[in-house]
């Protein structure tokens, strides 16, 4: 049994999963109203009207927990020159040819870019969502603004959904990753291979 390294505290894990659960509910209820092909998803929320009522509240909850999580993960997600080098070799990463990659810290460039997409995208969703939030806020805004907000809201959501599809897949693809968010620990081998700079920093090796 190899040694385990602490990656996330219990509080960070709970924070992440609160955002994740809210995101899944917001995405399903949002997609339900995005295209008729997904309207059947309103059944999960008690019908069309309930979906319309619940969706913005779920989104607001997601925003609040996301703000806390973003503040916690802000520092290790700053982009460095090594990240740009890592990004240039994304083809090798995808083909599982990890030899000689720049050594990532706690997060690799892919994870960092997702973080910044969310940091920009989720506030955009909140603001555009408030403009179209019936019946509480939408009546106070002009119709041209509602038209723009509907498009901006859906576009931001689409980008984030694509980002999260990649995020979830990466967690499945890179074995030993999911336990970081479920148990809080990763194997030393995992850390050394995927986040060598962070491994050195944490273990002093």
């Amino acid at each position, binding site marked *: 049994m190899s040694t385990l390294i602490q990656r996330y505290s219990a509080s960070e894990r709970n924070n992440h999963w609160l955002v994740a659960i809210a995101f899944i509910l917001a995405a399903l209820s949002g997609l339900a109203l995005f295209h008729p092909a997904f309207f059947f998803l309103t059944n999960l929320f008690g019908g069309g009207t309930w979906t319309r009522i619940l969706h913005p509240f779920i989104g607001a909850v997601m925003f609040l927990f996301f703000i806390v999580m973003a503040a916690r993960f802000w520092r290790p997600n700053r982009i460095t020159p090594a990240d740009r080098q890592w990004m240039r070799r994304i083809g090798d990463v995808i083909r599982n040819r990890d030899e000689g990659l720049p050594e990532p810290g706690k997060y690799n460039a892919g994870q960092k870019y997702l973080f910044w997409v969310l940091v920009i995208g989720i506030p955009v969703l909140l603001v555009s969502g408030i403009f179209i939030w019936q019946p509480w806020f939408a009546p106070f805004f002009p119709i041209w603004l509602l038209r723009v907000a509907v498009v901006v809201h*859906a576009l931001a959501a689409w980008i984030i959904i694509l980002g999260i599809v990649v995020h979830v897949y990466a967690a499945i693809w890179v074995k030993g990753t999911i336990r970081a968010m479920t148990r809080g620990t990763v194997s030393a*081998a995992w850390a*050394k*291979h995927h986040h060598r700079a962070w491994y050195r920093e944490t273990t002093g090796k």
Partner: protein
Amino acid sequence: MQSLDVQKRSATTTTPPSVRVAEEPVAKLIDISKCIGCKACQVACMQWNDLRDEITFHPGYNNPVDLSDQSWTVMRFAEVQREDGRLDWLIRKDGCMHCEDPGCLKACPAPGAIVKYANGIVDFVSENCIGCGYCLTGCPFNIPRISKKDNKAYKCTLCSDRVAVGLEPACVKTCPTGAIVFGSKVDMIHHAEGRIADLKERGYSNAALYDPQGVGGTHVMYVLQHGDQPELYAGLPKDPSISPLVSLWKGIAKPLMSFGIGLAVFAGFFHFVTAGPKEVEEEETD
């Protein structure tokens, strides 16, 4: 009820029943040059549809001042000074125009909440309405209103219930001057041509029919004395059309984007099958 054949249905991607082709499109023609602003149409509308708007007092003639969930039609009064210095008192009965290409229906995400019947009437089926307010963004005429009571959208139905049984809309029935007439769209256009010729003889050289083609024509049309300047009539849009933010978005972008999400999921799956997972040997540990 054959006259209630659904021709278009909101948030529905298959073809609604459409084999019956003999249905005659209807139209309501509002001849503004004949309107005396008596508001009998407003009263008839409320009476037939069992609506009672709040009683308010305002300076000026507009009363109620705006459309609401309880006022599906309102008279809009505009005082306009003509080039020869004379005053034109333009009174326009505002309400749903029943577009041939309805923006509200295009914008609506709730299946069957907005329908367009084969006779051209655009109707809100309130029990399917989820109250999202997207119809407001689709409408080029700023007509639908969300009720504060049930958060559902309301507007003129062109008395679809009356028309279905061969009656004319309540406002038409009550109009004392014959400014509002109802019939087949072809007949109404023909009727309007006579009125326009008459107005031109009387010096209104720009008299014209308002049947804007930007929304495919409408099933409520106006005879305008100043057909070249519809904006004079309390801001009637000159060339209304559905905002591209609604039409392009709903038309092309969303199916493509939905496809994109599906593609991303499949790409992940097939990547896993092709390249396999990233695994690390435990021996790497020192």
